[in-house]
């Protein structure tokens, strides 16, 4: 027998479930004992607000002995453990909780609240796995919406910042640019907007470069892509208008809330020309790239198309 605590609240005590001994419980503990990298001694220090993971407390020493586990341990979700099987264990634990009994529930909590809570946990797990988030149209722009066929909200994917993928290999570093980074697709061709779809930009201006990217399959922001176009990244495009220095540049938003970019054949990073972490590509220090052209969504078919 054991107690599972879902670690998700900030103010209220976390909900707990009492789990009786069962073949399903033993199967889960057996898998855990052979995949020890998903087991932590306590909550990871970087865990923030929201659903973070599970605390497991074994109530007798026999299960602990049989599966060689400590009397209590913690299983963080994948974004905290960095282990690809963490959320699979999370799903198994939620299934066990469904079979178990709420432990020390508050008087005001009803049975239907419990079902809603388990449903919420499954949803959170699903969203954490896909990295999907809602991109809301700001309130002040909703009034203008009737003029354009735009949605109030689109689903997008925000993936973790992973500069090593772009920086650690010299061939990848040199031959992939900001458009590769924004599309999260390594072509080793210094990809150009529109080249893959046969409509490469003919001038380095906001409309011309945008047109190339749209031809590759990008959409303007709030022109939603369906689920079968995952991953749908939120990206931003800027232009250095000259005179003399004329170029374009792209940024991509990450799960951590900041924006990443890769200036040409240099290293991918999340800071601007002043060394500040980029939380707003419209206001960050962009050097000579002074024109902000707008936000776009990339998608799976677009990134496969770029050359």
């Amino acid at each position: 027998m054991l107690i599972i605590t879902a670690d998700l609240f900030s103010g209220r005590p976390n909900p707990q479930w009492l789990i009786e001994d069962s073949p399903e419980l033993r199967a889960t503990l057996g898998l855990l004992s052979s995949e020890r990298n998903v087991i932590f001694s306590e909550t990871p220090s970087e865990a923030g607000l929201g659903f973070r993971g599970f605390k497991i407390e074994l109530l007798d020493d026999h299960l602990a002995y049989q599966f060689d586990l400590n009397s209590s341990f913690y299983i963080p979700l994948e974004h905290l453990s960095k282990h690809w099987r963490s959320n699979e264990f999370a799903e198994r634990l939620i299934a066990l909780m469904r079979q178990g009994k709420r432990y020390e529930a508050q008087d005001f909590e009803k049975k239907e609240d419990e079902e809603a809570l388990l449903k919420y946990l499954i949803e959170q797990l699903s969203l954490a796995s896909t990295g999907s988030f809602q991109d809301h149209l700001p309130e002040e722009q909703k009034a203008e919406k009737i003029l354009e066929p735009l949605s109030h909200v689109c689903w997008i994917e925000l993936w973790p910042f992973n500069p090593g993928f772009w920086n650690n290999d010299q061939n990848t570093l040199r031959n992939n640019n900001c458009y590769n980074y924004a599309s999260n697709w390594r072509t080793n061709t210094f990809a150009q907007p529109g080249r893959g779809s046969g409509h490469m930009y003919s001038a380095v201006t906001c409309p011309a470069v945008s047109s190339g990217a749209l031809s590759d399959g990008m959409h303007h922001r709030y022109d939603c892509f369906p689920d079968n176009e995952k991953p749908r990244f939120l990206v931003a495009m800027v232009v250095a208008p000259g005179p003399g220095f004329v170029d374009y540049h792209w940024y991509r938003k990450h799960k951590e809330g900041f924006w990443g970019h890769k200036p040409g054949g240099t290293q991918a990073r999340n800071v601007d020309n002043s060394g500040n972490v980029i939380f707003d590509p419209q206001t960050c220090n962009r050097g000579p790239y002074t024109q902000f052209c707008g936000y776009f969504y990339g998608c799976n078919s677009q990134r496969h198309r770029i050359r």
Partner: protein
Amino acid sequence: MDIYSGQPNPRWKLDKKVFQDMLEEISHLATENKLIPRPNQLGYRGLRVVMVGEHEEIYICGGYVFLCYKGLETIFIDGGQQIERKLLKSGIGMSDQLSALISQILQSLDDARLPAKSNS
């Protein structure tokens, strides 16, 4: 020229004599023992000289020359960015667009050398 983010960087073939003179000048420069990070900001970053078919490279930027040979990097001090200026000037005349760009960069190097103007 390491300058662009989206478009391919401009490049030109270096005259053999300019290249040999540059190597000669580098051989007389003082070395820098500290680890100097290469610039990676948006905008003009520096110049990369590569020999066709070779993996070795010379990167010139911000008053330093990074000489990479057989996996080892030696950093030299390019006082007054003289080598960088000479190399930039070697690209003038390759095309109108490149010439305008180089003139702009040379001007920005000169501006950076000037002492800041006082408001008083």
